[in-house]
């Protein structure tokens, strides 16, 4: 990320809490054990419009293991929904889970168009990349699929949030896994969408644990605690995105 982009992200992140406070709402917190998440503050203009016009936000989760992004126990509404409704006063959140485990990006993209047509979501949470990396999908094909889909979503007034690949120490040297991860970063930079970089966050957390002499968990984030952290990251990123003003367009 260039210096300009970093400055813009910092500016947006600082503006969002102020805008939230004006609505008697607060920025969702992320519990200490989850650590910080790598996610630039990216505006969600269509989500913001839904909040302004309907006081309702419809979020559709799709991708490999969508349940893992939503958090919470079986008997309650998804944690993501709970946090957002608690944090943003008067907001009614509806989370629709349409994840199909094991699905590649191409199949998910095909289905996503139908789900958008049927459910009219404001925001899409797309967990993407892990299955494509394991299935050895060529990087160019993956990149084209995801880019095309993001452009389609933009054209149809839907905000997208990408949830990146999992962190696993064992996969740090897996060539294709890292290639897909790099590709996702390129896509995000090109399309200007929000990405929850859980790989980077978990990597930092692992390094901190190592430095403090604690054992590194072997199942990073692959448990209820990890899913709840993901829901907290997402809630925070969405809240910031809903209240962040888009950066001013440079005058010609």
């Amino acid at each position, binding site marked *: 990320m260039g210096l300009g982009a970093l400055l813009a992200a910092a500016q947006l992140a600082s503006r969002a809490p102020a805008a939230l406070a004006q609505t008697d709402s607060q920025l969702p917190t992320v519990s200490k054990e989850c650590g910080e998440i790598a996610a630039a503050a990216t505006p969600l203009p269509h989500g913001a419009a839904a909040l302004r016009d309907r006081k309702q936000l419809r979020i559709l989760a799709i991708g490999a293991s969508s*349940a893992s992004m939503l958090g919470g126990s*079986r008997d309650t509404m998804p944690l993501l929904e709970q946090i957002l409704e608690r944090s943003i006063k008067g907001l009614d959140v509806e989370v629709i889970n349409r994840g199909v*485990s094991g699905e590649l990006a191409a199949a998910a993209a095909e289905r996503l*168009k*139908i789900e958008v047509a049927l459910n009219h979501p404001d925001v899409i949470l797309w967990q993407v990349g892990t299955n494509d990396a*394991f*299935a050895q999908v060529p990087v160019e094909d993956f990149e084209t699929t995801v880019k095309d889909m993001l452009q389609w979503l933009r054209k149809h007034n839907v905000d997208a949030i990408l949830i990146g690949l999992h962190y696993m120490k064992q996969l740090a040297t897996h060539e294709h896994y890292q290639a897909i991860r790099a590709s996702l970063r390129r896509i995000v930079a090109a399309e200007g969408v929000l990405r929850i970089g859980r790989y980077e966050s978990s990597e930092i957390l692992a390094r901190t644990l190592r430095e403090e002499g604690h054992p590194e968990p072997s199942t990073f984030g692959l448990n209820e605690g990890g899913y709840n952290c993901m829901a907290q990251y997402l809630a925070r990123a969405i809240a910031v995105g809903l209240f962040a003003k888009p950066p001013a367009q440079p005058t010609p």
Partner: protein
Amino acid sequence: MPRQANAVDFWRGFALVSIFVNHIPGIWFERLTHRNFSISDSAELFVFLAGWSLGLLASSRSAATNSALLVFRLGGRAVTIYAAQILISSIALALLASAAYAFDNPLILEWHNAAAIFQDPALTHIGLVLLSHHLGYFDILPLYVVLMLTAPAIAMLDRFARPALLPLSFALYFAALMVPFTARTWPVEGQWFFNPFTWQTMFVLGFVLSRDIGVGAIVRRHIDGIRIAALPLVAVTALMVVWNWFPDPTALPEPKLLILNGKSFLTPIRLLQFLALIAVFSAMYGVFAPYVPWLTEFLSSLGRNSLNVFCVASVLSLLGQIIRYRYAGSFIVDALVVFVGISLLWVTATVSEWRERQKSQV
């Protein structure tokens, strides 16, 4: 003696091989299966032929004379398929766990909706047994179980109120598309991949068209004309798939599911295209079978033992995915996976028929 090679067994064997390949996402040979040229794929063929087999069973002489016996046999078949689903799901979970340990990669435990089993085993095991929790790519047998549970009702309707069978099936189909509604999964919130309320129509159509009476008889009488009418539809839809000429689903009028192309709901375009496809391709068997007897016999033997072969194919597909992950799927690896996999399907069929022969001799 196993029955002679025939078109139904041949196409069922063809569907089984396609399912095996398609269930290894990313494999090179995936691009050769007919779904690359057709809106419908092997799932439609599999369910249609399951209905066809039911129709043949319902019209057999013993079943025709004894309704109670027919209901008993169909119920028994549903239990067998249910047991098969539980068995292959258990093997799949063990395979995933073994791979996660062997390759020191707990992410593998998350593949194919397995995460819930390992993280919330108490509730999810109940879901597995109730068929409300499905592993990814292991989701067609739950549909088959539900269809077989309804099979006695289908057979009895056919026997005592034949004109009502197809209208009732289509009424449920269109209601599920227009409301819309489907079966829910539990404990992981979601939907069945194959909506049983719409896919039942494919099963019933297989049943009805297998018969020499009613709609089946009408279709047989006019099959040449139907084929001529179906050919352009097959050709145009092939072009639609190859060039991705599908309308933007958001631009379609309501109810959108009546127009768009969706596999989960078996939307009308898929159903129509499938019927056109089988109308055209059902003529092919008689043309090429004499020239490739080895292929005919091979695929027919798979089709004759479809449940056993399907179960082994499902497990081998998962194994194929693990092998591709471990050995970074190249063309050579993919070719080996497909060659060894299909060979093992043949072994499964051969052993199944050998067992049947042994049983009949006792």
